[in-house]
């Protein structure tokens, strides 16, 4: 066998995993790999800061359903990935992060640009590798993609010393079958527990399905719809579960949690059985729930056994993949007359209506709730909305309707500001051959965290529309300050400089609009959507508009 340079072997292995794009930033420890990129069919997208590279990979993964790949050099390049890797970990997004490392002989000597990145990311990676022998590369890359994308998905890191990349390897791409002794994820639920769940569901008068990110990640939307419709069970989602169930469906009951709909929390509290499918039940989701004190029973379906019983006691645990377990449940008789419960829910909805109105001076400028509602009526049935973190995230989650094949991505678990621009760009790269509408929703705080990435969006003329909600404030923290300390107790939440975002967009050659009335927004949105290439619509909201 002709010896192959390890750096070329790495890219060959990525090719075999059907990698189209790598989002990265070069550096000394990656020189051999970047030399190999010149002749590789894999496209390297140069991000503008390593901090955003995992978000590109995350957006790409969520849009395409495949593993996203990011790349950074040793030392500061690698440590810049940490927040993005943690973001993907908390939201269970399959990405592979590759980092350069100093030469093997220099590891541990505090060499130039040396950082212990496997150590630094241990708490936020599903697994990681430090490659010590180039002959292991085919096995490690195959395993990394397998681990990232199976079971509960998550980030895997591969740290590759520079001198390993320069080795000549005689091994071919012979590594096919993954066999990891300690990793055999469970797909189908335990039949005994499934039986117990069926009995409980059949007995329940007021059941509720609580759908989390596991339904979206497990592509179980169709099965969930069929199961809910067959049994007349209302569906509530978590923030990560948005998109798991069509929001125009009569059984849809909103989003639960401290930033959810008031009525959703009431419905959940009234249930006698909560069927949790792929949701973590974090403190943000359960803060307004009293179900735990009542005698509510819980069926918890999750692919990760460690999630079950972690944040709440579970009556019936089912470890398995959402799609497989729901398919199993669908075949069984769990029917019961639930018209009384559904009528009760209608009353709850009536008593807790959504409030769109605002008073002056807030009503003088854009009403963000109305903005997202009207945006719902214009965007396509398969549009993707990538929201950042803050009030923009909550407004879009609550008032933009996810129906049909629409998607909603956000950093739900870690709440990482600056997520939306790179993640939407990553999603856009995933759809280059079948362009679709992709929207970035962010505030002036989160926008400024990643605005360097406008360079990538402009360079590649990505078809993304930025809905930039500006109020010169860090709105959500300000809202928390108001709620916790009272009016006027604002601290560190004022962006004391009114940036001319139009000039900024101009500098990048991005088509731009600025609106301060909902009617004007409605006028420019269709034009922005029609425009080939990136656009930015700045929407001015009054600083005191802090209600969700």
């Amino acid at each position, binding site marked *: 066998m002709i010896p192959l340079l390890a750096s070329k072997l790495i890219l060959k292995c990525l090719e075999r995993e059907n990698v189209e794009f790598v989002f990265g930033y070069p550096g000394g420890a990656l020189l051999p790999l970047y030399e190999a990129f010149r002749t590789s069919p894999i496209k390297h997208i140069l991000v503008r800061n390593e901090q955003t590279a995992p978000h590109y990979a995350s957006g790409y993964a969520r849009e395409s359903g495949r593993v996203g790949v990011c790349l950074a050099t040793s030392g500061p390049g690698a440590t810049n990935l940490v927040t993005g890797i943690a973001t993907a970990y908390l939201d269970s997004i399959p990405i592979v992060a590759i980092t350069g490392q100093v030469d093997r002989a220099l590891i541990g000597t505090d060499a130039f640009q040396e950082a212990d990145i496997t*150590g630094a990311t241990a708490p936020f990676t599903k697994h990681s590798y430090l490659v010590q022998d180039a002959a292991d590369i085919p096995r490690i890359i195959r395993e990394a993609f397998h681990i990232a994308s199976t079971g509960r998905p998550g980030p895997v890191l591969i740290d590759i010393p520079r001198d390993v990349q320069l080795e000549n390897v005689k091994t071919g791409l012979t590594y096919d079958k993954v066999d990891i*002794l300690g990793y055999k994820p469970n797909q189908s639920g335990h039949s005994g527990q499934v039986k117990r769940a069926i009995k409980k569901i059949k007995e329940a008068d007021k059941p509720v399905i609580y759908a989390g990110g596991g339904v979206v990640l497990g592509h179980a939307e169709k099965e969930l719809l069929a199961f809910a419709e067959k049994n007349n069970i209302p569906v509530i989602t978590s923030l990560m579960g948005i998109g798991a169930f069509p929001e125009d469906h009569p059984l849809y009951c909103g989003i639960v949690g401290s930033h959810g709909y008031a009525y959703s929390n009431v419905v959940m509290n009234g249930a006698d059985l909560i069927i949790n499918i792929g949701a973590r039940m974090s403190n943000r989701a359960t803060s307004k729930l009293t179900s735990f004190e009542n005698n509510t029973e819980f069926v918890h379906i999750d692919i990760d*056994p*460690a999630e079950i*019983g972690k944040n709440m006691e579970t009556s019936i645990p089912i470890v398995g993949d959402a799609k497989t377990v729901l398919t199993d449940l669908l075949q069984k008789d769990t029917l019961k007359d639930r018209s009384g419960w559904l009528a009760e829910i209608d009353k709850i909805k009536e008593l807790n209506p959504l409030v769109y109105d605002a008073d002056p001076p807030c009503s003088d400028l854009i009403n963000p709730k109305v903005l997202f509602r009207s945006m719902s009526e214009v965007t396509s049935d398969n549009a993707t909305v990538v929201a950042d973190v803050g009030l923009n995230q909550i407004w879009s989650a609550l008032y933009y309707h996810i129906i049909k094949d629409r998607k909603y991505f956000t950093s739900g678990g870690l709440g990482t500001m600056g997520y939306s621009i790179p993640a939407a760009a990553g999603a856009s790269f995933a759809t280059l051959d079948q362009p679709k509408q992709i929207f970035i929703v962010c505030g002036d705080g989160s926008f400024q965290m990643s605005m360097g990435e406008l360079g990538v969006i402009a360079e590649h003329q990505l078809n993304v529309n930025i809905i930039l909600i500006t109020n010169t404030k860090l709105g959500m923290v300000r809202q928390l300050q108001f709620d916790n300390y009272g009016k006027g107790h604002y601290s560190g939440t004022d962006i004391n400089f009114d940036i001319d975002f139009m000039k900024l967009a101009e500098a990048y050659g991005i088509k731009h609009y600025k609106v301060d009335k909902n009617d004007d927004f409605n006028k420019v949105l269709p034009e922005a959507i029609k425009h080939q290439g990136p656009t930015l619509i700045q929407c001015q909201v009054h600083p005191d508009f802090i209600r969700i």
Partner: protein
Amino acid sequence: MEKKTCLSLLVENNFGVLSRISGLFARRGYNIDSLTVGTTENAELSRITITVTGDDQILTQIKKQLNKLIDVITVIELKPDESIIRELVFIKVKADDTTRSQIVEIANMFRANIVDVARESLVIEITGTRYKIEGFFEMVEPYGILEFVRSGDTGLQRGAKILSH
């Protein structure tokens, strides 16, 4: 209710496996009482014994979180009545011409070994359960314990059952 539990793990002998396991305990706030690690009949695998204190919910979580680590192949609980759990301890005790023979006699009763003799001290090697070792400490304490080192629990299931993948 908090209790002491002994876990036995079979792990892949990979780079960083020990730091992954100890890191898991640290970041989730679980306390390790002791941890021992050593090779096995298979050069690619290691065996780890961990003693932890916690209530049932925490112990269940610890087991599940350990199982989530890719390098961890098997986790079992070593139940006291179905396992042999022992610890090795070296104790340096003050000893002079008047006390030496008394200490040796105590050591013999506990089937401990004298492994070092000096003019003013003895080093005793003792292996046993937590209770046996506590009893021995109590007996030699009056003579003056200069220092000691404990290996931490290590254990195996009784009978023909083995921890395998």
